[in-house]
């Protein structure tokens, strides 16, 4: 490993995450001074002021510089979005079980006396609560509907700005474009004044970006002057030169391109310090710079790799302030998605040397960020891509995620986007699709909790968690459902109602977003936003796809329906009375009923009778969702949930007929319920492929994999074939958890946490925790051996 990378990783590990209030302080000051000015101007001025005044630093050894907060691993608070994270946790945030943040006494004082008083009642959540219809508020508070920018789930930007444009053209040329547009505006035309104000705001933002880079140039120069080590001095001088040039001007080489990318990313994070700013197809748009440098002998492969690693490390230095509910997600996922692979404009193979270098970098770094995705196009990409990817998969870091390129293109073309744009799709946050600089937001305004939907049918509209009645249709006492059809009818009625409510919620969220939270820095790189003089969060982008209705608990819903059908109607093994009682008591004292529920067929095992029911229900959800339109046109789509929402969603749902106990996580995406996929990986793929993928948008699939697969050449070949079949089946996403020997050892100590861990033992697939200790030890020693 490169020494400077080693140093950077050490720094990451040794620096405790902390709270940074610089942004909040400056923003508060600017907002106090600008009362009465248009919001976009106030935001722009605040941004520029932060760029001028924020603490900047250059770490030892680093070649790519810049950070949105005041130090490594510091998380800036966005006071206008969620000041309340600190209101609620000021004295405890450093003590949370996970994701702690250090905070000083001065910071606490500053927050209490200055920041909080100004922003109180002004957060996204406050706005929502103050004007939400009563029933929506109740449904959101009950966790039946989930708000993306809400209290309990991480805050998502969910955008892919066009980094490439900034790198290629430079901010100065963007500024000229804005000025041209400004000059062309006829202010006598109604609506144009608004545009004029908006463009003015963008100009202020451009100033901020350029000034920030200049400050880094100065700092680098100062540091160079006192630097003793001649080699580092040279590097610092080089950094100074680069920062003086980009992102104001077009990048002239690979290094400048990376630095320009990073500056833009830093500025996006300063604007909103949330997750999911996505640089997109980096191997494609950085390749020309790489190629030219290599051809002209200015850069070696080795140097390129080092620069890439320097860039990738930086993604890990960014923190955002998660609220306390986020601790149940654990880990500090920031979902900064980059993708490699896919196809070129002409439909050719997009894989190039940078693709492989980036995979190599991910292999060496073993860090959680960036969120690394491979767009695999079965018809165009070579097998080597999968083989290299396998080398990364087997490290067990969770990277990469695989995306089916053709499935992605199909989704986008289904929305009427032509191939010439659709080919270039990239990943938005954890798994959504987007087009860099072309698709606006917000993308996931509302989600529906399918586990709750089942619960509400079983309880005739009552929330188990609180015992209170919710404002939803009362579909009748299940004891009176004479046939399975009666039950299904009631379920569909409830689902249809909740989808409608989710559409209402989505409209509300989109309206608040547009009014209160323009994305100025991002919009700079949306050519159409400048042309239309409209923000990318306000319908200004080239494509304004209707925000999706996302869903969580897919397998829980299907499994519950199947269990009811089998146990109550088909085989008549239990009555509604018995089932409802057992669910009420969370199966405590009703273990035999739970056991029965658990033995009912489960989604994820390639059982035809389940497929039929699953298809019916999902089709229904998709059709219902299509009835509603987005704020900026287009029909809404029904989608699989974003990563990690299933944990929060599960904490709101009582016991279910699937056999799942109360308050435990729901299933993840279209992955099977934990520990029920006993027929192995191919069965899981088969079932995932039956989830009406043509209409069910971008669902997520996680799969645990036995590392022994990668032990032999045959295993790697099989993995390649497996992935080809995955592509053939038209499944959009897949990600693997490779079980390491450490995990197995941990599972021995804490079996309750690893109930669903499957291993293959001499022809059998079985739960690891169910094996006698002796055999477990044997498997561990074999696993260790395989990987060595």
């Amino acid at each position, binding site marked *: 490993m490169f020494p400077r990378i080693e140093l950077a990783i050490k720094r990451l590990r040794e620096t405790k995450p902390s709270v940074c209030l610089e942004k909040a302080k400056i923003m508060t000051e600017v907002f106090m001074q600008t009362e009465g000015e248009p919001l976009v101007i106030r935001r722009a001025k605040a941004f520029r002021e932060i760029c001028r005044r924020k603490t900047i630093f250059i770490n030892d050894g680093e070649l790519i510089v810049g950070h949105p907060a005041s130090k490594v691993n510091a998380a800036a608070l966005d006071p206008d979005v969620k000041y309340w994270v600190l209101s609620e946790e000021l004295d405890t945030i450093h003590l949370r079980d996970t994701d702690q943040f250090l905070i000083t006494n001065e910071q606490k004082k500053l927050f209490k006396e200055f920041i909080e008083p100004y922003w109180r009642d002004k957060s996204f959540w406050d706005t929502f609560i103050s004007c939400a219809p009563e029933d929506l508020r109740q449904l959101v508070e009950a966790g039946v509907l989930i708000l993306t920018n809400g209290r309990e789930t991480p805050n998502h930007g969910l955008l892919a700005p066009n980094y490439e444009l900034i790198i290629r053209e430079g901010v100065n040329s963007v500024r000229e474009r804005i000025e041209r547009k400004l000059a062309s505006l006829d202010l006598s035309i109604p609506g144009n004044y608004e545009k004029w104000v908006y463009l003015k705001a963008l100009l202020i933002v451009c100033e901020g970006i350029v000034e920030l880079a200049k400050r880094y140039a100065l700092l680098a120069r100062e540091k160079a002057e006192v630097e003793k080590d001649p080699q580092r001095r040279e590097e610092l001088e080089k950094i100074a030169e680069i920062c003086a040039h980009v992102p104001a001007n077009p990048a002239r080489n690979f290094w400048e391109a990376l630095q320009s990318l990073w500056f833009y990313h830093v500025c996006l994070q300063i604007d909103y310090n949330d997750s999911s700013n996505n640089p997109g197809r980096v191997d494609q748009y950085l390749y020309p710079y790489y190629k030219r440098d290599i051809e002209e002998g200015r850069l070696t492969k080795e140097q390129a790799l080092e620069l890439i690693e320097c860039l990738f490390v930086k993604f890990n230095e960014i923190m955002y302030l998660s609220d306390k509910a986020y601790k149940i997600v654990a880990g500090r996922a920031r979902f900064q998605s980059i993708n490699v692979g896919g196809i070129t404009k002409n439909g050719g193979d997009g894989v190039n040397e940078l693709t492989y270098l980036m995979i190599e970098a991910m292999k060496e770094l073993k860090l959680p960020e960036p969120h690394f995705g491979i767009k695999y196009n079965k018809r165009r990409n070579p097998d080597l891509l999968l083989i290299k990817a396998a080398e990364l998969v087997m490290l067990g870091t969770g990277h990469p995620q695989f995306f089916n390129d053709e499935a992605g293109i199909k989704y986008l073309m289904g929305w009427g986007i032509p191939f010439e744009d659709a080919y270039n799709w990239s990943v938005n946050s954890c798994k959504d699709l987007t087009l860099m600089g072309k698709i606006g937001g917000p993308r996931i305004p509302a989600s529906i909790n399918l586990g709750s939907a089942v619960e509400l049918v079983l309880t005739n509209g009552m929330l188990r968690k609180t015992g209170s009645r919710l404002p939803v249709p009362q579909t009748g006492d299940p004891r009176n459902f004479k046939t399975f059809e009666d039950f299904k009818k009631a379920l569909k009625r409830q689902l249809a109602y909740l989808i409608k409510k989710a559409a209402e919620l989505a409209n509300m969220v989109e309206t608040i977003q547009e009014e209160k939270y323009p994305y100025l820095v991002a919009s700079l790189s949306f050519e159409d936003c400048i042309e239309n003089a409209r923000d990318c969060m306000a319908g200004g982008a080239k494509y304004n796809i209707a925000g999706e209705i996302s869903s969580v608990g897919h397998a829980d819903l299907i499994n519950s329906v199947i269990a009811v059908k089998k146990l109550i109607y088909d085989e008549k093994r239990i009555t509604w009375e018995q089932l409802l009682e057992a669910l009420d008591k969370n199966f405590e004292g009703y*273990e*035999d009923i*739970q*056991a029965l529920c658990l033995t009912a067929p489960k989604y994820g095992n*390639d059982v035809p009778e389940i497929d039929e029911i699953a298809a019916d229900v999902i089709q229904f959800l998709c059709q219902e969702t299509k009835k509603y339109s987005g704020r900026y046109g287009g029909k809404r789509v029904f989608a699989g949930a974003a990563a990690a929402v299933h944990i929060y969603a599960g904490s709101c749902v009582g016991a279910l007929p699937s056999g799942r106990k109360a308050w435990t996580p729901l299933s993840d995406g279209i992955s099977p319920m934990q520990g029920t996929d006993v*027929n*192995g*990986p*191919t*069965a899981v793929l*088969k079932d995932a492929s039956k989830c009406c993928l043509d209409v069910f948008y971008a669902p997520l699939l996680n799969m645990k994999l036995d590392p022994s*697969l990668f032990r*032999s050449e*045959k*295993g790697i*070949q*099989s993995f390649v*074939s*497996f992935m*080809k*079949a995955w592509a*053939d*089946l038209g499944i959009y996403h897949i990600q693997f958890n490779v079980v390491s020997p450490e995990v197995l050892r941990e599972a021995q100590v804490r079996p309750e946490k690893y109930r669903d861990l499957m291993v293959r*033992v*001499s*022809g*059998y*697939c079985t739960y690891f925790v*169910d*094996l*006698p200790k*002796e*055999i477990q030890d*044997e*498997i561990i020693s*074999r696993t260790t*051996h395989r990987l060595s």
Partner: protein
Amino acid sequence: MKGLILNIERFSIHDGPGIRTVVFLKGCPLRCIWCSTPDGQNMFPELEYFSHKCIKCGRCIDACPKKAIVKLNDEIVTLRYECTLCGKCVEKCLSGARKIVGKEMTVEDVLKEVEKDMVFYSSSGGGVTLSGGDPISQPEFSAAILKMCRERGINTCIETSAYGDWGSLAKMLAYTDFLYVDIKHIDPLKHKKFTGKSNRKILKNIENISKSYPDMPVVVRVPVVPGYTDDMENIRAIALFVSGLGKNFKIELLPYHRLGIHRYEALSRPYLLRDLMPPPHEHIKTLKRFIESYGVKVIMS
């Protein structure tokens, strides 16, 4: 036609080319003392009881109509000679400690399972593998499955001890694309001692295969069981034997492992090799080089 199935496992990559579905049939003519799937040996369903999972709740005792389950010194004991395999106790046990292995299936039932992974076979060049137990203990049933797979373009493979009459074997081979066959020991007496049967029929059958199916890819599997089969003399003799059979024959070394030992207890059968440890990796490598010096290709999984 019906057969007795132990288990069907999908996504197997060590039992023939590509990604395969392995059908484990119940019943085997041999009784190797190191066998790791003793539940595959008998050609009838059996009750398994895993004491490490049992919470001693006694629910099974009440459930058994034959009173075949008793508590003795705080241990749950099943009087197997009384048991009719009715399955009542399995249903009542909440901790999954009881299980009946061996399920009757028709050829069509099996095909339905096998066909589910068609897309993986075509992407990988895989198919179906009959294993066990040993498919040779249900030759008609096995041949029928293989034939139907062939007709559907599914690549076929069998794993057999080759202990049986040539007619039974030939029935299956007619529809087999890839063959695994075991030579556990070259010495007939030792073979009989370790597996219960002499190896004469096996070696004869293998020679027949090499003559009758000169194009069939064959992998001869050799279990490496320390102190039993792993001496140089045995390995040398096997290598020599295989080298005379033809280029389509390879050897695969199967290092002894202990992953099946809890199944003996589950079936209330003694495990004779309690203290035997798996061979060191180095030893396997040495044997591999040694066999290769006879011009035979060696694969290791």
